[in-house]
């Protein structure tokens, strides 16, 4: 197969997929924008996101401050832009952690079965029995409200979903002919699992992960609302929304609206993308 045909099939495939799902495509573009912003954010922010200005506190949107300023006179636009990196980073960190842990625990449980499956299963059942948000609160309160701990707490409460997905997917493939063949071919179980089974469950896991991104962002926002967010003065959408929300009745709408829009767009974009990916990668469970 020549390069030419590869790229043309790819293109036609892509065209087909995009045509089938414009919303997912739009979400994809949005994601690229967010990622770009996360990378170059600090460079394009017009102001220092932590610099206070006593003379311009709670100023309404203007040419100088398109998103207005907050109670300490900090530029909301700059804070929203700079926060992108941290918010996406935290969500990515949490998702990556639970993805990795799920990719280890789930396949082991699903492939080997037996007592190890029981142990992992019970562990996950126990986690699932917790009221998840309160568990996250407890973990962050106990460990301290640093970025790392928020990421860890979010990863822990999301872990069950990954382990379950991975376990179910592996369980389903365990006895398929190609796995059987690999086993018969003299491969050791670990090798069969790592080389022949796990790669095939990745699509389902990726879907799970992208659906989980939005939830991770919302979780961090909720923690901020009850005072367990990242340390001030670090700009973070959840903290900005929950702080801004205290001005809702006094009319300084810009303090919560703009970070709110950023947050909602990010969550929406991940959720739509997750949805779309599920349709593309895993047509079986298309809903």
């Amino acid at each position, binding site marked *: 197969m020549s390069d030419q045909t590869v790229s043309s099939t790819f293109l036609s495939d892509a065209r087909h997929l995009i045509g089938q799902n414009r919303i997912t495509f739009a979400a994809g573009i949005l994601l690229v924008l967010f990622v770009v912003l996360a990378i170059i954010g600090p460079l394009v922010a017009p102001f220092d996101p932590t610099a206070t200005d006593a003379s311009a506190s709670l100023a309404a949107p203007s040419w100088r401050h398109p998103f207005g300023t907050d109670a300490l006179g900090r530029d909301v636009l700059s804070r929203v832009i700079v926060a992108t990196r941290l918010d996406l980073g935290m969500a990515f960190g949490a998702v990556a952690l639970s993805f990795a842990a799920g990719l280890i625990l789930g396949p082991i449980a699903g492939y080997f079965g037996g007592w190890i499956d029981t142990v992992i299963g019970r562990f996950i059942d126990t986690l699932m029995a917790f009221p998840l948000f309160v568990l996250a609160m407890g973990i962050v309160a106990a460990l*301290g409200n640093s970025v790392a701990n928020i990421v860890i707490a979010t990863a822990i409460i999301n872990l069950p979903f990954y382990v379950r997905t991975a376990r179910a997917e592996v369980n389903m493939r365990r006895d398929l002919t190609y796995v059987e063949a690999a086993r018969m071919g003299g491969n050791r179980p670990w090798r069969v699992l790592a080389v022949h089974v796990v790669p095939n469950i990745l699509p389902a896991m990726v879907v799970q992960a992208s659906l989980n991104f*939005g939830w991770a962002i919302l979780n961090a926002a909720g923690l901020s*609302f009850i005072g367990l967010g990242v340390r001030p003065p670090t700009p973070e959408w959840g903290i900005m929304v929950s702080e801004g929300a205290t001005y809702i009745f006094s009319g300084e709408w810009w303090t919560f609206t703009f970070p709110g829009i950023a947050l909602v767009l990010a*969550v929406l974009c991940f959720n739509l993308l997750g949805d779309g990916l599920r349709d593309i990668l895993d047509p079986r469970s298309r809903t």
Partner: protein
Amino acid sequence: MTMLITILRRLLSAIPSVLGVIVVTFLLARALPGDPAAFYAGASATPESIAEVRSQLGLDRPLLLQFADYVGDLLHGDLGHSVSSGQAVLSDLLTRLPASVELTLAALVFALVVGMPLGVWAATRPGSFVDHACRLLVTLGAAFPTFFTALVFVYAFYYRLDIAPEPLGRLNEIYFVAPPQVTGFMLIDTLLAGDMEAFRSAFGHLVLPSISLGLFALAPIARVTRAAMLEALGSDYCRTARAMGLSGRHILFTTALRNATLPILNVLGMVFSFLLGANVLIEKVFAWPGIGAYAVNAVISSDYAAVQGFVLMMALLFIFLNLVVDLMASIADPRVRYDV
């Protein structure tokens, strides 16, 4: 008989989870910052008085013994005393649980009433504009932080438009006397007491919080409804029904919808337990006297007994709920058998 055995087996299989929850919560509560002895001893405490309180509370004993004490108390149905409310944790939780359950159920009803029609509608025209719009709408509903939606609702419908009642708990208790507690559900109790005005007040107070909460559940319900309907509509019996000349409406609402019940029921259990956990932040905004607000306060104030009690109760509740959903599923579809 088989049903009974199934239930028993399910209950037995939940025991390790419950034990795990007890251990983890105990350790987590101990890891919370703050020294309950110093807290108890108050503002004018001396090192001696703190030490005295510590030994009174048994906090100077080795962790393992403290755990043994805790488990011993649990076996007697004693969840300990909450420092912040000054009451027994069990009675706190029991008084507050109905408020949270009522709110969660109301949110679920909202999500069903809105989400199912959206799902059905989308399923009738898959891939169309309507389908995409529905999907966008429900996804958007789940993209807002719950506390944010709640505050915006209060601002818009109470503060500006004046069409929602004051965000002050479950009932306007200035004008209405709370009905005698029978079920703990305000809507039912006011009806039992025959107080229609109080019922209206209770209903009005339930609207905004349950919608703020229910928005979160729209997406899973609409999604699963759509998928189940698509499958059902494409199935042999629906095609047969159509071939037999039954009207589209009839097929949609009887055959197809009935066959979609099972997956909806399955997702409902998950959604309910999720919502029960998620109303933590909503309760704070609406001064809702439920267990969510109680739990937030307990974690923030390192109220060990309250945190432990709350988590334990929720865990038991989730396990019970999953059992109920499974049983209902097996009733709805006799093909479903659970061999755990």
